[in-house]
């Protein structure tokens, strides 16, 4: 190795050093350390911890609530990914028509995604409010309901409520990516398929979807990772309730550690959560390497 290429490599390392320091200190070390905590009975308040082996995991897997937690999390991830995905897709197709005002509508929709989760949580709690919420008022007025529904207090309706809020928040994000993908769709190919006698729908399925498929795959993976991590809206709107009906890994790990102070149990649950996430990050890595 000659001197200039050694200097070159050295500069590369110097430039990466600040990022690497922050990364190791704030992400890598906590990640590894949390895994270690999962084998102890560590408490958030008392410092002395005992090694307990797999005890936390044994407790988790003998607890019926864990199964329910996995199921609830999957439900939340499934609907909160596909809901905004399809709405975002349709909205992107509409906005891509470039009519008067389309840029404005696109921009205003993106406001949903940019504003704080706490504001969105408050807003939808207000809309879904059982006594005075606008949703009940509208549905009763339209004759679709004959009495008020306590949306956030019901075991089946609370999931619907948080998924709706999450859909409202996230569909513009999917739209933005899909609009980027649509720019790469060749007008010639669309034209060609039309000459071959395809109608709009056939052209969409056979020309547009294959062309934007990489973007669609990417946002489905990233969207699922985001939802598997999602905390804000559930915490603000239901806090995981009623009776754990909206309790996901994100809210449960937080609750176990910071309300019940049992770091060890919480960490073990977090490791299971990480394993679930690793399925998606595996897809993600594969997708990146394909490029």
């Amino acid at each position: 190795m000659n001197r200039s290429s050694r200097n070159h490599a050295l500069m590369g390392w110097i430039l990466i050093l600040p990022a690497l320091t922050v990364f190791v200190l704030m992400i890598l070390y906590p990640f590894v350390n949390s895994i270690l905590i999962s084998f102890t009975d560590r408490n958030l308040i008392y410092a002395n911890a005992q090694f307990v082996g797999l005890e936390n995991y044994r407790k988790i897997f003998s607890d019926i609530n864990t199964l329910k937690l996995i199921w609830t999390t999957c439900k939340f991830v499934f609907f909160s990914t596909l809901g905004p995905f399809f709405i975002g897709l349709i909205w992107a197709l509409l906005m891509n028509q470039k009519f008067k005002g389309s840029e404005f509508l696109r921009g205003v929709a993106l406001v949903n995604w940019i504003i704080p989760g706490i504001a969105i949580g408050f807003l939808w709690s207000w809309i879904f409010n059982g006594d005075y919420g606008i949703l009940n008022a509208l549905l009763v007025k339209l004759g679709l309901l004959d009495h008020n529904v306590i949306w956030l207090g019901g075991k089946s309706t609370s999931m619907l409520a948080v998924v709706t809020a999450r859909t409202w928040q996230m569909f513009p994000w999917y739209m933005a990516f899909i609009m980027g993908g649509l720019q790469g769709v060749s007008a010639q190919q669309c034209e060609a398929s039309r000459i071959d006698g395809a109608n709009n729908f056939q052209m969409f399925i056979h020309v547009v979807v294959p062309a934007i498929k990489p973007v669609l795959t990417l946002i489905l993976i990233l969207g699922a990772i985001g939802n598997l991590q999602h905390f804000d809206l559930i915490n603000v709107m239901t806090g995981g309730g009623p009776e754990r009906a909206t309790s996901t890994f994100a809210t449960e790990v937080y609750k176990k550690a910071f309300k019940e102070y049992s770091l060890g149990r919480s960490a073990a649950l977090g490791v299971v959560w990480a394993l679930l996430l690793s399925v998606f990050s595996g897809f993600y890595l594969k997708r990146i390497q394909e490029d």
Partner: protein
Amino acid sequence: MFQKTVGFKIFFWVFLIMIGFFAFFPQLWMISTSLKPESEMFAFSFFSYFDLSNIVRVLSDSTFLTYLRNGFVVAIASSLFSTVISVFAGYSFSKFRYRGRKSVMALIMVSQAFPQGLLLLSLYPMMQKIGMLDKLPSIVLAYVALTLPVGTWTLKAYFDQVPVSIMEAARVDGSSEWRTMFQIIIPLAIPGMMTIAIYSFVWAWNDLLYALTLISSTANRTLASGMVFTFTGEGGNDWIGMMAASVVASIPVAAMFVFLQRYFIAGLTAGAVKG
């Protein structure tokens, strides 16, 4: 792209109205509620009032102003540090070749899928040990770390577009590698840096989980977590106050976004798509 057949026109208008209503009515409802006098809280009037007293009430509350100030301090600091660190890292990943580069890149990328709640279980005791619990730098550091993956990869995508020949030409002219970087290469990535600056600002401004746990005193709370405490219990039924606070909390990020939209969307999607 589509032919304007009758079928398409129906599709277009039906979904424009349905999704449009779903997207925009809640936004307007938030604003409309925040402008109502308290006596009208439960009336279903829509923009019948323009009463700014709720916004004034929120903004004249000294606790809320503390939250607001801390929110800005944390968001600006996170944005600055995150951008600077990401620029260096992105440049290094894009234009340098050294052993271990690919592994570090992959590791940083994958870390996006590390559960944030799990990291927190160690960060909390760690911050406690080094005396940084309930101090603003603790969450700034966390936000810099959490925005790092998207930051480095987005900026790497920008630097990838800069031809190596520019660097070589500068070298031939006798410019040192550092000077080339600061005077020639980094200016070319300014749009990308804007993207990351906004992205990190918004992340820090909006975050709830870390602010809720690592900060414990009223004096140090940021806006998002502060709002949780203001409006739970007794304040939990003050819907007009909640909507007014939500409007105030949304304005900085929404305004920033409206003005800088171009940078933001193109930059972020480019980084993620190109990888």
